[in-house]
């Protein structure tokens, strides 16, 4: 069972208290963008085996969205962080690098 700490409530919430929101830090391409950008924004998602950044919602708790960095292969969780950011904060990057020095970094 995946267990994530809600950064707003400070409680450990298991997967069944949460709602998954898919890949994190998407850049929106709306009206006026090229067809390719719009298609990529709508449909194309990363599906890595390993380090991944996702959105989650504490649905039966505070109701807030937050971010999580975890490993899709080992289910290891590197950390959770606020929704109010466009990319993973440094402490999360450091936590991933500490475990995987060979990791190519975010993006």
């Amino acid at each position: 069972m995946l267990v994530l700490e809600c950064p707003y409530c400070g409680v450990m919430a298991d997967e069944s208290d949460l709602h998954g929101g898919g890949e994190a830090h998407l850049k929106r391409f709306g009206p006026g963008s090229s067809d390719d950008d719009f298609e990529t924004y709508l449909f194309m998602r990363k599906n890595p085996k390993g380090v991944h950044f996702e959105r989650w919602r504490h649905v039966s708790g505070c109701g807030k969205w937050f971010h999580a960095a975890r490993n899709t292969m080992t289910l290891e969780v590197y950390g959770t962080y606020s929704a109010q950011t466009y990319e993973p904060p440094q402490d999360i990057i450091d936590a991933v690098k500490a475990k995987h020095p060979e990791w190519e970094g975010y993006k």
Partner: protein
Amino acid sequence: MSKAQSAWNGVSFDGYCRVEEQSLVGMITVRGDLASKKLAKAVKDATGAKMPGQGEILSSDKGRAAWMSPDELLLIVDHAEAPGIIDAMAAALADEHALVVNVSDARAVFHVKGKAAREVVAKLSPADVSVMAPGMLRRTRIAQVPAAFHMVDEETAELVCFRSVGQYAYDLLKDAALPGGEVWV
């Protein structure tokens, strides 16, 4: 005006824990800036309790104030006094970005009483019930529905859910408290 009725009119069930519906309970949802001094004073005037911190529920003789999210509180007060309290709070917070709403009749409240009160809640929720000390509130789910609970004392769990699922919640709690279902963790 019609007479107010709770979801279950105070019905109770005696299993290896006792399950009691709490009849009419006043409940007020507040949203706003929890760091605001004005809001803290309004909460104190309404409930007699201080502004709760993250995950806390604070009580006085007059009522309780519970932290529900970084911008939301639940105030538990006398049912008949709730409308007056809301008018006073709305006036006190007129120039703040805040919302005060009476949700008393949109909720159902249950007590689970007995030595195994924690165990009965634990059967239904993914939350770590063992760490819940009086003064802490956890929003989680029981089986398929959202619920919040806190320990009034070591042998009494108070549980709040939506009234629309009040029957489901009562049935769940009765089932979890059935004699023969003891785990005694």
